[in-house]
């Protein structure tokens, strides 16, 4: 049984790693492409996440800009970097930092579901702000990539089993396949 268990653990790590890598790849179009198109009294804008933050700060909405920056740029990158660290640590085998790493894992699980701020904002505005020539909001493809980043990160987080970090007394060292 033991070899099978260790195999499934490594498969879990592989799955988490591949999902995290996919999320990291989608991070590029999510930040490069425009996420929202707004038309307000003839003023037309298409914004990427970053240009939206810059726009908020320029208009004096510093606090909002900081919130959007944290929610949309800092947290996704932080989550992916932390996941990479967790996966790397798990591949090294159980270590001394198990308690700290598990705490990090719990934090990631908790903030994961709060990362859809941008997606909700764009979806809400696109639905509500439809006033023909006066004001119109439409989603742009970047928001799909951003949603994919969030979903893939959450999936990677779910695939990762924090128990690997601890190991068990019996499986601390990989068991030879023949007993």
């Amino acid at each position, binding site marked *: 049984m033991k070899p099978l268990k260790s195999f499934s653990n490594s*498969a879990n790590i*592989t*799955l988490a790693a*591949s*999902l995290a*890598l*996919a*999320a990291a*790849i*989608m991070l*590029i*179009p999510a930040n*490069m*492409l*425009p996420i929202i198109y707004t038309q307000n*009294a*003839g*003023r*037309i*804008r298409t914004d990427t996440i970053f240009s939206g933050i810059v726009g908020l700060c320029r208009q004096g909405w510093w606090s909002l800009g900081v919130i959007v920056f944290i929610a949309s740029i800092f947290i996704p990158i932080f989550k992916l970097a932390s996941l990479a660290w967790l996966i790397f640590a798990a591949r090294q085998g159980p270590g001394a930092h198990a308690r700290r790493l598990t705490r990090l894992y719990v934090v990631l699980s908790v903030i994961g579901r709060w990362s859809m701020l941008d997606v909700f904002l764009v979806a809400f505005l696109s639905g509500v702000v439809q006033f023909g*020539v*006066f004001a119109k909001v439409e989603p742009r*493809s970047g928001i*799909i*990539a951003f949603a*994919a980043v969030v979903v*893939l990160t959450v999936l990677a987080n779910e695939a990762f089993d924090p128990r690997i970090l601890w190991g068990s007394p019996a499986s601390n060292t990989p068991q030879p396949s023949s007993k």
Partner: protein
Amino acid sequence: MKSLDNPKVSRATALPLVWVVPLLALIIGGWMVVREYLDHGPEITIEFADASGVEAGKTILEYKGVAVGEVQSVGLKNDLNAVVVQVRLSKDAAALACEGAQFWIVHPQIDFSGVRGLDTLVSGAYLAIKPGSGSPITDFKGMGEPPPTQNKEEGRAFVLQSDRLGGITTGAPVYFREMKVGAVETSQLSDDSTRVLVRIRIYTPYVDLVRTNTKFWNAGGLSLKVGLFGAEINTTSIESLVVGGIAFATPEGELAPPAADGAQFTLLDQGEKDWLKWQPKISIHPPEITPASPVHGGEIPFVH
């Protein structure tokens, strides 16, 4: 349990199936980025003497009422004498930016001969383009005002020579039997500055009214005659009172051949009473007035 003599030992495949996920992400993400950049048409620069109302990221380029591009940046030229506007065309509009294309800025314009660009009151100014036909280029010179006629193929243009302008403005109507059948396009001094040249355009259905022996006269303003038996005030219309106007009449009898595009005539200060009595029978094909007729694009010339 019997053990196999030659157990076949196979290693796990080097690349587990899960790595399809990032591969898929790479393909989809790459496709999204590529598509975004393929959707962009060429970037062109237009030089304007004045670009008031043009804003980067807001002003759009319109052609036939459809947005075909967006202003990316507005900057001064190096010698500070002109403004350089960069426009990103949409992909399907790339063919518009050819040699000979003309660009101008549409502002709201309200004068006595009509209201133009009223939509720009809400949306701000926009750029308009009249496509060229040469080879594709990226550097253009913008124009200060719209080109004389946006549908050049429509109607026929004639040049009238006069001693003085007599209150005729651009867009002023041209009348035949007090019907508006054309408009003044531009007016300028002749090369030797001894005369004024007024270019008019007669709309398509009425072009045959102008013959080589047609008389043109200034119908603007009002003439006032006070005599022994009363006073007489003459004016063609309120509009021509304000913006000026030109009337013409064609002699009856044997019809002269229709005047060619660009033919020159003399613009007289006043018409003669006899000219109004001329009844030349010239067959024209004016647009239908019946409400059942479909509304087609373009200006219907007899609205006034």
